[in-house]
């Protein structure tokens, strides 16, 4: 009984070896359609405001005590960013991401406590804020049509702000971390566009220098919705 089993295994192995050899010698079959390699997404959303800190306009007073001329509290207002992402699929789960965004927040400084009794006033300035960063996105599930794919992502890059009248360009570094959901609406193996879907992102963006407060970093929450196309 045992000898018979061994014989069957040997026959099977020989058969596999034959098929392998035959396959190698057979004419090349048509290559299977390749998976999408690039995704382009375009979207908009909301970029939350953030405090830029407080600062007192202090004079040097008597007995080394500061004498307040007025005080200020500054923040960067919320804005609606437009966002473009170019994703390079490194595999089913890992994606290298280039993200660009533009928004027009208002810088706001409130002035209070004027020593000569001037009424409190809020001063503003509109700035154009640009960012360009590189990051990594990790899909937490393989993409299937009509099935939600959660992901996490993080990146870092450049952020610049152009002040009113193009008077001044300030630049800094931004870091972002967050996640979101993708929902493929169409997936196909053939054609130039291999898929399309919608995507929602939420992230914490930390900005240093640039518009950020002189000391420390500025934190902003961002939420965007996008449509994406796979190529």
């Amino acid at each position, binding site marked *: 009984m045992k000898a018979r089993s061994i014989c069957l295994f040997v026959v099977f192995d020989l058969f596999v070896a034959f098929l392998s050899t035959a396959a190698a010698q057979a004419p090349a079959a048509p290559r299977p359609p390749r998976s999408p390699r690039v995704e382009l997404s375009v979207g908009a959303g909301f970029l939350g405001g953030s405090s830029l800190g407080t600062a007192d306009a202090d004079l040097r007073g008597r007995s080394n005590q500061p004498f307040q001329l007025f005080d*200020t509290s500054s923040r960067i207002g919320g804005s609606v960013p437009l966002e473009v992402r170019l994703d390079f699929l490194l595999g089913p789960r890992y994606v290298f991401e280039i993200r660009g965004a533009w928004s027009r927040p208002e810088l706001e400084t409130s*002035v209070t406590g004027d020593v000569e009794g001037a009424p409190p006033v809020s001063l503003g300035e509109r700035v154009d804020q640009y960012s360009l960063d590189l990051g990594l996105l990790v899909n937490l599930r393989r993409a299937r049509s009509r099935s939600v794919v959660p992901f996490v992502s993080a990146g870092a890059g450049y952020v610049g702000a152009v002040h009113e009248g193009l008077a001044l360009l300030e630049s800094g570094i931004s870091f972002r971390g967050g996640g979101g959901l993708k929902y493929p609406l169409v997936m196909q193996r053939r054609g130039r566009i291999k898929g399309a879907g919608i995507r929602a992102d939420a992230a914490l963006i930390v900005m240093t220098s640039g518009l950020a407060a002189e000391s420390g970093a500025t934190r902003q929450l961002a939420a965007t919705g996008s449509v994406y196309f796979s190529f």
Partner: protein
Amino acid sequence: MPRLLLVAIVCAWTAPALAYSHFGTGVGTARVHWDDTPVRWFATERGVPGVTASVFQTTIARAFATWQDVPTASIEFAFAGFTAAEPFDEDGLSAIGFQDHPEMDRVLGATTFLYDDETGELIEADIFFNSIFEWSTAAGGDPDRFDVESVAVHEIGHFLGLGHSAIGETELRPEGGRRVLGSGAVMFPISLGRGSIVDRVLEADDIAGVSDLYPDGNFENSTGGVHGRVRRGSAPAKGAHVIVFNPRTGDLIGGFALGDDGGFQILGLTPGPYVVRVEPLDDADIDSFFALDDVDIDFLVTYYPRLVAAPSGGVGDSFDVTVRPK
């Protein structure tokens, strides 16, 4: 044609004796300044109780070093020796020392200049410290005496060609004169009083002033300015004091609306957004700042309703601040 200009560039304590302004505003388009460095200075051989001539000299040297050490300015000084010459002598020596001036009973010190009135080039500048007051060079100050180094840093600002700053708040004293509540520049015209040593350290307004007058290397490219007009209705608010405040750095820098149209310009600003505040020039005698007959002080403190960005290496768009009468 050089001429001696004896001016009331003084540091007072209870009476007004000049935001960063250049004394040279009265010399046509030229600014009073030193062309050749190092600028040589002499100390007089006279001491006063508590301050020997030697200690006085080392204290004055420290005060000169305070200005020389401003990284964005290029001006150097050299102590040339002790001299029997007196401050205010027109002798080509820049002499610094004590003198008795009982008739100037509210004046701690003063600076005079000999300069070319065509080019603004300084030929001589003298500083006197009024020995009718009690002076101290104690490291932490002496509550009963005036601090030589603090007054010296102020007077050396004039020695360099700077005028008085108006960044400060005062109140009138019942017995006459003014009491300083706070000052935002060493070049504020009135001293904080006996015992105070805060004027040993330069403020942003002082640094912007000396850097604008003696710019070093990249200063002009790395800093910017704002300019505009102060208006009351259709008329200029001449002489209005304009303060700009950088909320990121805390810097306060001032200037005056001295243009015929109420125009002002403030340079030497760290690039960034600024709060602009305009106030009447009512915290010291107007003539301690400049000679104008039609200075408008009858208006309320006003903030320009927008933040104004100071660019790098230039000035932004002009803007008008409209003030309301009191």
